[in-house]
């Protein structure tokens, strides 16, 4: 059965500042949903809520009808709700293979299946050759790919990618997008993609959700968003 990850009216306040207000989204297994918004719009905060790192001041997070609003990050990760970090955050002094084995062992400790899941994830992102290198010695682009492989090794149901192409050049970015587009078919998961590059987003996401100042500005199929006057004015206008 296909699952659906939803937030209902999520609100996050940090002291006086409201980072998210009344945000409801849904992500289905098998689809790629684009999450857009200018800097400080609350995109990362939303991922933090979905992955259990930030407790919302109001609202709920659910998978189907199961309430996961107060679940810990590690529990959510083991249940298949997995995120990457805008700043990558690899295990620097460990090898690439070990980086990808950590999530695998969180599932099935030391088994042959586990080794295979790690290997599969590395092959998928094209880094099987680099598996004995120390993560801290990798160039930036490969670092980001290891971050994605590490997330995929958990065999997610829902995968949240926080600006995976940040800092890459156009060619690398295009390759990465092509890779991301293949994730739902390969892993059967839903992908939430945060990305600033509009052509990229329009190319791979059937559905988009746009935030501004912590509120939902627009949400729907990409053609609709592309024509939405609010979005054009406040977000697309500048590009």
């Amino acid at each position, binding site marked *: 059965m296909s699952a659906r990850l939803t937030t209902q009216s999520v609100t996050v306040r940090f002291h006086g500042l409201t980072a998210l207000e009344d945000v409801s989204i849904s992500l289905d297994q098998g689809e790629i949903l684009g999450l857009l918004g200018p800097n400080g719009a609350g995109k990362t905060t939303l991922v933090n809520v979905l992955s259990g790192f930030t407790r919302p001041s109001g609202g709920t997070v659910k998978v189907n009808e199961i309430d996961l609003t107060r679940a810990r990050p*590690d529990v959510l990760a083991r249940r298949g709700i997995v*995120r990457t*970090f805008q700043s990558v955050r690899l*295990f620097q*002094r460990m090898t690439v293979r070990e980086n990808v084995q*950590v*999530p695998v062992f*969180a599932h099935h400790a*030391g088994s042959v299946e586990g080794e295979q899941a790690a290997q599969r994830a590395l092959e998928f992102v094209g880094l099987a050759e680099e598996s004995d290198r120390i993560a801290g010695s990798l160039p930036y682009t490969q670092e980001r790919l290891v971050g994605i492989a590490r997330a995929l090794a958990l065999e997610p149901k829902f995968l949240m990618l926080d600006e995976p192409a940040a800092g890459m050049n156009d060619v690398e970015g295009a390759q990465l997008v092509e890779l991301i587009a293949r994730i739902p078919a390969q892993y059967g998961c839903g992908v939430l993609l945060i990305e600033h590059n509009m052509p990229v987003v329009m190319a791979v996401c059937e559905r988009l959700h746009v935030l501004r100042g912590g509120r939902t500005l627009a949400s729907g199929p990409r053609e609709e968003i592309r024509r939405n006057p609010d979005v054009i004015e406040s977000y697309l206008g500048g590009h």
Partner: protein
Amino acid sequence: MTDSVDPRRSSPAAAASLLWIGRVARPSAALIVPLLVLCIIIALTGAPRLESIMTEALIYVVLVAGLSIFIGNSGIVSFGHVTFALIGAYASAWQTCCGPMRLIFMPELPVWMATAQVPLGLAALLAATLAGFVALILGVALMRLSGTAASIALLSVLFVFKTAYENWDGWTAGQSAIVGLPTYVTLWVALGAAAVAILIATLYRVSSYGLRLRAVREDEAAARASGVNAWTQKLVAFTISGFVAGLGGVLYGHFLGTISVSMFWLDMTFLTLAMLVVGGLRSLTGAVVGALFVAALRECIQVFERGISVGDNLLQAPEGTREIVLAIVLLSILIFRPQGLVGELEVGERR
């Protein structure tokens, strides 16, 4: 998964377990065999002084290996592990000390314990297990902490236990020493214990538990996002390292034949930490190398403290030189080679 054995599955599984045995055996042997050779050489020289120096150094290998299981994999510097050596040493004394004198030193021991003659090996095992158990109980609360907060909390554990043991007269003889412990810790017993400690530390390090704790050490948030329960992983390492440190305490008591609470205090804390830092905080090889290196260094300085005659003159270093030189060595290492003598290296391990 079915219960029946699938013949196609058994061969990769067998290959994997062989691989795993190799991953434990190779690095353990790479540390144990040189120690064995060193012991044989020392035994052949037949110098009792040298033998006792090496025995003590091997006991420190046990203590520092215990420390390294926790510190090396978690990245949390523990100022409290000597507590477990203290617990182990006293627990062994309760079971094995000094025949009829036992009730004179420790009058409040329950009768069954005061009269029990537990075999020495079993007593050591039970004592170390108690230390590991206390680590488990303390860890349930303490392992919620990270970084400096955890280090300070662990130091306070040492203070609490020292005070408790010093005032728990009926079980510990308070501030006075307990003498007459069976001194069964020969060079070979110490070597055997060091081998066991190295094996335990290696098993833990190459296990999925060690890997997950190192992930927490590198980046706790990323580890949690990868499904790792940081608290559980720290607790596992803390318990195992408490057990090994407890074993070190048992050995120390039965090496000297006497124990007092003040033996397990800041001197030992500083010395064992210095050994680990000098060798390399994040490596078991570093723990072993550091323990031997610092033990040897201390011995050399002590020779000077006692005085050596050059021609007609007696060259003598003043009392306390040992601590000062050790501090200087430690500082130099911290400044010039902060990763320790061996850094991240693990002998016998392929990266």
